[in-house]
């Protein structure tokens, strides 16, 4: 099996990808409509919550964080695989990333935008959101730089803006292709403006290469720091079950894990919707699946480390939280998380399932369900069994408002993502050409080596 067929004509790559901007399959419009309906649900819930107060989300006094924070971590986590594919694999010269990194990078950007919304939805006084931003003002008031939430804000801002720039810079040559091929309408104006007059001159390519590499180098530590900081929201606190040294790497592994699973899901959907069968090949899918399997095992290991270190410690409170997770009210969800996160991925180890699209679609969705549960199981059980006995057994079940907003966030993400794929080329044309070119060269060299014998 080949990652890509080296006989594809370069002109065909252009036409095939440009077609995705025009006529997708009907399913595309169905997805779009569903996404908008989902957003409507969330907007309704949020309006209600904004009017009435946070109480309608059914949180209570010791149990002040709910699904919003859990889902916030989930979306931040989702963003990490875009960077994995576009930056880490770029540095490793893994050619197979080329047809799929663009949409992964877009996934990064849009899941960060979704995560950002959850911070706001979570706030009791959304209308005073700007208090948490460091802006100069005549009162000399600043946010509290000691708070991990502020680090979050800073890290997310950095990550989001860098990701957008990275996505954009990497897309400039493709935007030039769009400009050269689309001759009318708002698209023409958009692509002309965004392609900045790119013509593929040697000077442009030379600087492009260095810049792309530089930003890739920055993005890798940035991605790690972002999720470590999200982990610090918990690890820096004093609460049992949160105050865990291994949280930052554990969170980063979880982030890559759920991100990779999401890439598989979106891979399958895009491949079908935009007829990308020739570019998003099964061979590439197989590599992604193997990568996901490896990361799932890393996550399983770090999970085990966390439990083991709590279990063998003398920290009575943390141990009580662990026992509470496994046997208390949240036990069904906790065990489901273990099942979805550690047992289900074992399917991916079997070769015959590594290219089986229906199975992979189901598995990737289950993996993400597991990862979402993981975040919930980090946030919630600590509240029902913290240090202070008075708070014990204060179970709290999120109301329809919380569920509605969480549900709608998936619609919001899908809408942004699907619009992106329709407006911008979601397969990197110039890089697929590079991939084809490298393969042709390799084949030629192989051929001449054989000829010499």
């Amino acid at each position, binding site marked *: 099996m080949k990652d890509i067929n080296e006989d594809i004509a370069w002109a065909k790559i252009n036409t095939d990808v440009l077609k995705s901007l025009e006529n997708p399959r009907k399913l595309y419009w169905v997805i779009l409509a569903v996404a908008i309906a989902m957003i409507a649900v969330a907007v309704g819930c949020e309006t209600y919550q904004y009017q*009435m*107060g946070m109480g309608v989300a059914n949180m209570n006094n010791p149990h002040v964080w709910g699904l919003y924070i859990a889902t916030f971590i989930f979306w931040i986590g989702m963003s990490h695989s875009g960077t994995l594919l576009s930056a880490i694999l770029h540095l490793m010269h893994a050619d197979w990333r080329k047809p799929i990194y663009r949409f992964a990078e877009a996934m990064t950007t849009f899941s960060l935008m979704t995560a950002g919304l959850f911070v706001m939805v979570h706030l009791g006084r959304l209308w005073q959101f700007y208090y948490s931003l460091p802006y100069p003002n005549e009162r000399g008031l600043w*946010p509290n730089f000691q708070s991990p*939430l502020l680090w979050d804000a800073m890290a997310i801002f950095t990550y989001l803006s860098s990701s957008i720039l990275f996505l954009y810079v990497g897309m400039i040559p493709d935007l030039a292709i769009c400009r050269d091929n689309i001759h009318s309408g708002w698209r023409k104006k958009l692509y002309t403006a965004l392609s900045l007059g790119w013509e593929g001159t040697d000077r442009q390519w030379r600087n492009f290469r260095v810049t792309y590499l530089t930003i890739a180098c920055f993005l890798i530590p940035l991605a790690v720091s972002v999720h470590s900081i999200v982990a610090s929201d918990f690890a820096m606190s004093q609460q049992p079950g949160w105050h865990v040294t291994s949280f930052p790497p554990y969170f980063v592994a979880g982030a890559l894990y759920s991100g990779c699973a999401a890439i598989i899901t979106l891979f399958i959907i895009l491949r079908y919707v935009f007829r990308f069968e020739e570019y998003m090949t099964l061979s590439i899918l197989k590599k992604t699946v193997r990568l996901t399997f490896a990361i799932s095992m890393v996550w399983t290991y770090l999970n085990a480390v966390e439990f083991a270190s709590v279990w063998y410690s003398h920290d009575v409170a943390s141990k009580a939280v662990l026992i509470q997770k496994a046997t208390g009210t949240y036990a069904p969800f906790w065990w489901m998380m273990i099942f979805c996160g550690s047992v289900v991925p074992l399917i991916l180890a079997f070769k015959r399932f590594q290219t089986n699209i229906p199975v992979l679609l189901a598995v990737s969705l289950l993996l993400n369900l597991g990862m979402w549960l993981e975040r919930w199981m980090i946030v919630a059980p600590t509240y029902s069994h913290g240090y202070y006995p008075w708070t014990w057994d204060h179970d709290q079940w999120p109301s329809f408002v919380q569920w509605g907003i969480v549900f709608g966030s998936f619609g919001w993400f899908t809408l942004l993502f699907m619009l992106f794929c329709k407006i911008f080329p979601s397969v990197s044309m110039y890089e697929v050409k590079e991939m084809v070119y490298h393969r042709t060269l390799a084949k030629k060299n192989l051929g001449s080596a054989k000829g010499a014998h």
Partner: protein
Amino acid sequence: MSVSNLLENWAEFRHTHPVDDVPHDPYKWAMSIDLDACTGCNACSVACYAENNLPVVGKEKFLHGQSMHWMRIERYWDEDGRDFPDQGAQFLPMMCQQCEAAPCETVCPVGATNHTPDGLNSQIYNRCVGSRYCSANCPFKVRYFNWYDYPTTDNVWPAEMSQQLNPDVTVRGKGVMEKCTFCVQRLTSAKNTAKNEGRIVHDGEVQTACQQACPPGAISFGNLVDADSKVFKQWKAQHVEIAEFEQAKDRGEQDNKLRGYRILEELRSYPSVMYLERVRETAV
């Protein structure tokens, strides 16, 4: 400007509190609660509702865990298999412990909660954006969030009750965090009176609402810097030091006759409330 400010006052900016910092002066408000005297009558809690304009949320929201009792009486039972478990009941009045190194303060994204010069943990309602991180990180869970806009909710202060609201205390809107203030409005007015007369506040001159209402007088409140105050004497008698995280009682000194302890001291938040262990065997 700011760099020169940094350089000039560098040493001041690098102190950790309370361990290597100067003690509070002239005020450090502190409390001691004698659990042996506490009967669990809830008068303190009621007094707190009246003094601090706490919303009475009603049965339904109470069952949702959205009650606003800054001062709460917790009940615990011994599980030693005795015939009448109620006999082993213990009461613990719990309110904000006004920690010297409060875990809630560091995590607030907007700096709405700070340590004041007189040793309180202040909460600035205007600044609060409602991230609720402070409550998440509070070991005692004594912070209460305004889940609804209580002042405009019908049954919180029925018509005739609105005349009873304390004019010295603001009414909090929805989406902000609140908690026990040690009746800061009373402290401020007492301090102002004393300042006008060129002295510091005498012991007993200012009482918190809970202290005032406690029938057996289980709660003492005062200035820990003032060597004449009852609180100072109690803390001293129990060998409880504000800047320590392990007290004489924990070390088993004085033949275990000491009763004073602070809750969850090992977390090093250095609370300002000392509890005196119960010595009698039954609750009543």
